[in-house]
């Protein structure tokens, strides 16, 4: 029998915490990292007798998300109760949406290296977040805990849930989709989209099927992926796991699986038999709400620049290659940074882009920082570029300066002065060093004369070494060639 080729079929559910001032149904502040249970009130604690009142800002935000995802905004929408017992949920039901979400039937064109892929959006709805549990056990899991603590600061925070159709075919595509969605919510200003801090959470439904088949295989849902890296690792692991099962004649179980970052694998969390009946029904405490055409159009007209518009602008206005424009608009902070820097350095946007995508990104990744958390402001970067342009420092020294400025936040001007890194462009000064080097390296000089080009590199290197890297390499090259 021929070995079958499988393809992965992936659908995503993405929860995004919205940055409203107050919670979804009460006046408590939306916060992160505060002292436990300090931002609660009778309503978000679900005390007997309390009632929810909808935060209009959250409805505005989910409408914005729906529009940015090319969705239809439903003229009448409603809240439902999702009933299940869990200690992090004060009412033992979650106010969510069911058959009439705020937004449905949209799409997002995901940009990939090999082109675009359209991922259809089934729906985008609004709901309330739960509290957070802290299980006192080694594993941090409930069933092994001696006791558990609960923090309700997060309970009632507005959450936007986006559900895609199963249009994604690989972990890379999933990462690209989430990254683009994250950039959208950042550009809309409705969320910081921080995966590590849990303000953007991804669940994935994965199944495999033989290439060419139109049927769906049995799917597993994977949860607990807390970074882009773990998203990619978890999906790849799960695809391989299922493929191995299928190849060996086994079958995939419909179940919920937990991604264990430490072990680097997914493990069974809940089997299908344990799937709960949430007994959705319309929340009688909240009446259906209207999103009129006028309301939707007003929001549409006020939408800020979205990543795809920004990308287009970067290409058209700044003449950037599409790849650069895409990378620079993957997060709002990077796009903002680039815009800011180009304002100060209009002459060569591509040069700015090169530095951001190259050296800067490399440093940020190593330090695990976002661009707006770095000490290097656009002013710093432009200062550095100007020093290179004026030939005050060489490109090589520039990297050294960058390093220093990344670590200390000092302006390049100051670093160059403090470390006396100004490039030597005075020909007579360089000539002295060249003469000395040629005299000391007679063998290399002979080699070069006899046509061994390698010797040139050696001699230039020696001159650079003597000048502590400050000699202008072009001048050094020219002088050595002239003298031999």
């Amino acid at each position: 029998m021929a070995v079958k080729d499988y393809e992965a079929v992936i659908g995503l559910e993405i929860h995004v915490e919205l940055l409203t001032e107050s919670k979804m149904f009460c006046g408590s502040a939306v916060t992160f990292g505060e002292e436990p249970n300090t931002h609660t009130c009778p309503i978000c604690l679900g005390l007997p007798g309390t009632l929810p009142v909808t935060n209009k800002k959250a409805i505005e935000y989910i409408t914005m998300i729906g529009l940015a995802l090319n969705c239809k905004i439903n003229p009448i929408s409603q809240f439902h109760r999702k009933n299940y017992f869990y200690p992090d949920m004060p009412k033992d039901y979650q106010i969510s949406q069911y058959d009439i979400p705020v937004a449905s039937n949209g799409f997002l064109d995901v940009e990939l290296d090999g082109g675009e892929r359209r991922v259809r959006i089934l729906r985008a709805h609004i709901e309330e977040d739960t509290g957070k549990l802290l299980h006192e056990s080694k594993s941090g899991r409930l069933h092994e805990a001696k006791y558990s603590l609960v923090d309700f600061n997060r309970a009632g925070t507005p959450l936007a849930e986006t559900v895609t159709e199963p249009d994604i075919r690989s972990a890379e595509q999933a990462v690209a989709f989430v990254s683009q969605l994250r950039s959208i919510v950042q550009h809309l200003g409705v969320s910081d989209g921080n995966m590590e801090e849990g303000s953007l959470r991804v669940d994935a439904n994965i199944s495999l099927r033989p290439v060419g088949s139109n049927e769906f295989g049995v799917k597993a849902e994977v949860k607990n992926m807390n970074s882009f890296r773990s998203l990619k690792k978890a999906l790849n692991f799960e695809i391989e796991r299922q493929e191995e099962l299928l190849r060996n004649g086994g079958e995939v179980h419909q179940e919920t699986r937990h991604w264990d970052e430490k072990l680097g694998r997914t493990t069974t969390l809940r089997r299908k038999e344990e799937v709960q009946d949430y007994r959705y029904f319309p929340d009688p405490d909240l009446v259906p709400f209207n999103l009129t055409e006028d309301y939707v159009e007003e929001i549409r007209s006020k939408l800020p620049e979205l990543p795809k518009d920004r990308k287009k602008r970067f290409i058209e206005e700044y003449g950037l290659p599409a790849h650069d424009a895409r990378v620079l608009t993957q997060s709002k902070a990077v796009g903002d940074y680039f815009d800011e820097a180009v304002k100060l350095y209009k002459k060569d946007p591509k040069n700015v882009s090169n530095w951001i995508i190259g050296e800067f990104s490399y440093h940020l990744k190593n330090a695990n920082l976002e661009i707006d958390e770095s000490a290097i402001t656009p002013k710093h970067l432009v200062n550095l570029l100007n020093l290179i342009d004026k030939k005050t420092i060489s490109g090589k020294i520039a990297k050294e300066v960058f390093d220093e400025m990344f670590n200390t936040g000092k302006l390049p001007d100051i670093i160059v002065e403090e470390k006396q890194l100004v490039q030597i462009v005075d020909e007579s000064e360089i000539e002295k060093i060249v003469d000395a080097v040629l005299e000391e390296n007679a063998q290399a000089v002979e080699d070069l004369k006899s046509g061994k080009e390698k010797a040139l590199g050696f001699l230039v290197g020696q001159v650079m070494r003597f000048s502590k890297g400050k000699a202008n390499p072009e001048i050094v090259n020219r002088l050595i060639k002239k003298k031999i």
Partner: protein
Amino acid sequence: MLYELTAYELNKKLQKKEFSSKELTDAVNSRIESVEKNVDAYVTFIEGKPDNNDNVAGIFRNIPVAVKDNICTKGIKTTCSSKILENYVPIYDATVVKKLKEARVAFTGKTNLDEFAMGSSTENSAFKITKNPWDTKRVPGGSSGGSAAAVAAGECIAALGSDTGGSIRQPASFCGVVGMKPTYGLVSRYGLVAFASSLDQIGPITKDVTDCAHLLKAIAGHDAFDSTSLNTEIPDYPKALTSNVKGLKIGVIKELVAEGIESGIEHVFSEAAKKLESKGAQIVEVSMPHIEYALPAYYLIAPSEASSNLARFDGVRYGFRAQAEDLLEMYKKTRSVGFGEEVKRRIMLGTYALSTGYFEAYYGQAQKIRTLIIEDFKKAFEKADVLVSPTTPSTAFEIGEKTDDPLQMYLSDIATIPANLAGIPAISVPCGLSEGLPVGFQIMGKHLDEMTVLKTAYALEQTIEFKEKPKLN
């Protein structure tokens, strides 16, 4: 005796300084001391100080008022007559309690109810069975039995109840007092421990229609903390208190005076209707063809909502918690031990009705019936300004008589449930005695037409002159 007077009368006398606020409070307290052991109306008593501020609007300043124990009172136990909330102390006041505090009432205490307002006899309380002051072998009705009995027994001057399917009107009827369920959304539900959110409404239980109008005025009004609260101008309800019903069209609901009604009740009711007719009102017969489905629809919608509303009583954060080895067992034990039989029955019923595969057949169908009943009312109100019926098919029954037969118990709400399903105002006014027990006359009005309901009730009260009092020792 001071405790026998109405709030309106007492306010007049307080203003004339015929006695002091303290004397009034003392009079009610000593009445409580002498009869509470026979009535068992209260779960918790509240000690208060008389208010000395003369610049308070309304007639309720320093008037002893009781509050049903499913309405949250800051710092004072609110038990819902359930073991699961036996020692629960709210950290906030319900909006109605805030309003009564602004009116400077003298709170007497929290009154007994069927656990979580589920019942029609107050026998479902985890703590005590309240007795009917007219005959302490009989139930006071429910679920606001404690409030109705307290008003009837003179253990307070007025009280608040809550009405989901008749829980104010039915006990008011059994106890010979006035009880009103306002239009859904007229009185804030914020702080009322929810039973069935789309049906619950807080309302007054008073000695007469005048006090009812005044108390309604004190508690009605839009509340930003309740999304279902109506943003509407509140009329001056006491202005409705004229006995002029000339030309008023009163529709008798045919289906509610037919079979299943005690003959004594039928007699007292039709005599009362005739008296209204003699005052110039026009009696017409109206039909509500879908009313027979109101009861089954109610017993799907209310338990469905309740099954979700009562989920939060899980032992995690407050209230009773059973000791157990793990979380699931803790949930199960807490709720098995903490809730009484009727509450568990309704949670099960509602959980079932909302389950996948049954939702459309039960909850969905019930909502359709609800729409049909609203339509029935609309048509009926084209023929009449108010609709009337006996409040209950029987007078107060004996304690224990119906506890083994939930369906018989549910039937006592047959006439009161339709108003909750339609969200319209309805009042029960005493209209006579049948074999020594009070009979209630129910008047239902159009959405937000409390004025006509109160006017009709007042006219009835004036013509009937129901002066009998329970002979309680």
